[in-house]
C-alpha cells in the first residue's frame, strides 16, 4: 500500500494549493513516503470540502448532537480537552481518549489498538460505536441522500448526487488528509529559518537520547505499538492491541502517538490519565510495575535532573504548530450554512 506521492514543492510549509479543482497535499521534502495511496482517492477541492462538511455535521449521529469534530476539535489538534475519556451520544462515556488527528497519510493503522487498517475505513468505528455516534454508515448515507445540500455537494465532488458509503468515507479521508502539521518551530529550525534557544537545544539532545526510538523524527512517532508501562486501570482493564490480535506479546500495547502539537492535545495517553507534559516525563523517570510487557527501551527509567526535565519540555513545546491549529481551512463550514439559511 505504501505509495509515494510526488508533489512539486513550492514551500515545504504550505498545506495545500488548488488548481482547477485538483488539490495536492504537500509532502515536506524530508519526510518519509506516505502510507495512503492518493492515486486511489485523488484530492480535489470539492471532495475535501464535502469531507469537511461531513466532519462537522452532528446529524450523522443518533441524537444529532455529536459530530466527528465533537471529539476532534481543530483547536486541540483535532482531539478534545477536558475529558480523559471521550464522550458521545446521550452523554455516554467511551473507554479511550480520542487521539489527535494530524499527518494521517503517514500512518498505516488507526485507533489506539490499530484495529483499523486504512484511513478510509476509520470513520466507520465512531459512526457505529454505541458510545460515540451510535449510528451506521447506511443510516448516514440515507440521511445524506435525503438532504438537499448534500446532494448538491456530492454532485460537485463526484459528479453524482447520490451518496454511497464508499464516497462518504473517501470524502472524509480527503478532509483528514489535508490535516498536515509541518510548520512548528522544530520544522522551521530544520529548514534553517529559525533556531533553537539553548534550553530547547539541550532538550533536543535529551529527546534524541531518550525518546527518539519510539517518537521518531520527523513525524515524532514510528506509529508502531508498545507498552510504556502504565499501570492498568482496574475499571477499564484495557488490554490494548492484544484485543485485536489475541497475541500475548501485544498485551497492554498501544499505538505510539506523535508528539507534535502536544501543547494542544492534553490530556495524554490512551485513557487520558495525564494532564500535563510534566506528568508524562515523570512517568518515564519512574520504575515500572512488573508484568506490563514494557517496551525494551523503557525497561530502565530515564534519568533526568529537574533542569533536564525543563529542557526536554522546552523542546517538546517547539513541536507546537499554531498555523495548523488555527488554519481556517479546517474550521466549521459556517459560510455554507449561512448561505443555506439565506436560501
Amino acid at each position, binding site marked *: 500500500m505504501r505509495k509515494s506521492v510526488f508533489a512539486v514543492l513550492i514551500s515545504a510549509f504550505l498545506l495545500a494549493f488548488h488548481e482547477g479543482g485538483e488539490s495536492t497535499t504537500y509532502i515536506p521534502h524530508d519526510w518519509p513516503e506516505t502510507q495512503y*495511496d492518493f492515486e486511489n*482517492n485523488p484530492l480535489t477541492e470539492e471532495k475535501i470540502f464535502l469531507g469537511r462538511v461531513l466532519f462537522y455535521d452532528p446529524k450523522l449521529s443518533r441524537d444529532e448532537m455529536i459530530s466527528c469534530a465533537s471529539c476532534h476539535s481543530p483547536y486541540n489538534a483535532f482531539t478534545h480537552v477536558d475529558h480523559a475519556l471521550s464522550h458521545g451520544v446521550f452523554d455516554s462515556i467511551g473507554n479511550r481518549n480520542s487521539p489527535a488527528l494530524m499527518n494521517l497519510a503517514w500512518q498505516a493503522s488507526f485507533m489506539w489498538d490499530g484495529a483499523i487498517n486504512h484511513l478510509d*475505513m476509520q470513520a466507520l*468505528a465512531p459512526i457505529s460505536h454505541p458510545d460515540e455516534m451510535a449510528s451506521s*454508515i447506511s443510516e448516514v448515507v440515507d440521511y445524506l441522500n435525503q438532504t438537499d445540500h448534500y446532494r448538491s455537494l456530492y454532485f460537485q465532488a463526484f459528479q453524482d448526487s447520490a451518496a*454511497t*458509503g*464508499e464516497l462518504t468515507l*473517501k470524502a472524509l479521508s480527503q478532509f483528514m488528509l489535508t490535516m498536515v502539521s509541518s510548520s512548528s518551530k522544530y520544522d522551521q529550525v530544520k529548514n534553517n529559518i529559525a533556531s533553537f534557544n539553548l534550553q530547547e537545544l539541550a532538550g533536543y539532545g535529551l529527546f534524541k537520547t531518550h525518546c527518539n526510538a519510539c517518537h521518531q523524527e520527523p513525524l515524532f512517532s514510528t506509529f508502531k505499538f508498545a507498552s510504556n508501562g502504565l499501570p492498568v486501570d482496574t475499571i477499564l482493564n484495557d488490554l490494548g492491541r492484544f484485543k485485536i490480535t489475541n497475541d500475548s506479546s501485544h498485551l497492554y500495547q498501544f499505538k505510539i502517538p506523535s508528539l507534535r502539537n502536544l501543547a494542544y492535545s492534553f490530556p495524554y495517553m490512551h485513557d487520558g490519565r495525564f494532564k500535563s507534559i510534566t506528568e508524562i516525563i515523570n512517568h518515564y523517570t519512574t520504575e515500572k510495575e512488573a508484568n506490563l510487557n514494557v517496551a525494551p527501551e523503557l525497561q530502565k527509567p530515564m534519568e533526568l535532573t529537574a533542569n533536564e526535565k525543563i529542557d526536554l519540555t522546552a523542546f517538546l513545546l517547539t513541536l507546537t504548530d499554531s498555523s495548523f491549529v488555527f488554519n481556517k481551512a479546517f474550521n466549521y463550514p459556517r459560510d455554507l450554512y449561512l448561505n443555506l439559511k439565506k436560501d
Partner: protein
Amino acid sequence: MARLIIVLFFMFEICPTIAQSNRLPITFVLGGNSMSIENILEIETAKFYVGNFELFNNAKLVFSEEKYHLIDLKSDQMLQVMLGLSKELDYNRIEFTLGVDSTTNENGAMGGDLDPTNGMYWTWQSGYVNLKLEGQLGKNEFEFHLGGFTNGNKCEQLLQFDCQKGAAINIEFDLINFLEKTDLEETSQVMSPGSTAVELMGIAKESFHLVE
C-alpha cells in the same frame, strides 16, 4: 425483522439452456435436504461474498473475472452472478472464492457490492465479513459473522466444481449441513476473526454443492 421459516428450499427451473447465450448465470440457492432432525430453521440473514470467478477447460484457464459479488439468499435480487463469456468458449470446470482476499481487505473504501453500507464490513476493526448467518435452529439461536484476512486468521475459501458447457450453474448452500457440523450446542456465536472462524469457513466450503 421479517423472519423466513424454511424447512426445505425448493429450486425451480432456473437453469435454462445457455448454449446460444454469451452470459453464464451462476445461481446460488439455499439448501437443506440433508436435515435428519425435526427442527425448524428460521433464517434472519444468509449473506456471503463470492468472487474471482475462473473457468477452466481441461485445466487451462480460459476465463477470469476479478470482482466480488454479494449473495443474499434472502433476497431474490441477489442470488445470481452473471459472467459474460464468448459463445465459442469451452470450459468444464469453475472455480471461485468464498470470501474476500487480503488485498481487497486492505484497499480502503470500495463501492458496489463491497460498499460498507451492505452491512458486511466490521466497524470495530477492519475487514469484510465473508459469510454472515443469523437465525435459529430448534432452540438454538446462532449468529456467525465469519471473516479474517490477516496471517493465521485468513479464511477465504476456494470452491471448485466440474461443470458442463451449455448448462447454467446452480450452487446450493446446505445450511443444515453447516449448522449440524458446527454443533450449535458448543458454538453458536462467532463475531470476530480467529481459529473458530477459520474452522467454520472450512465447514461452509464443504456445504456448497453443485446442483445437477
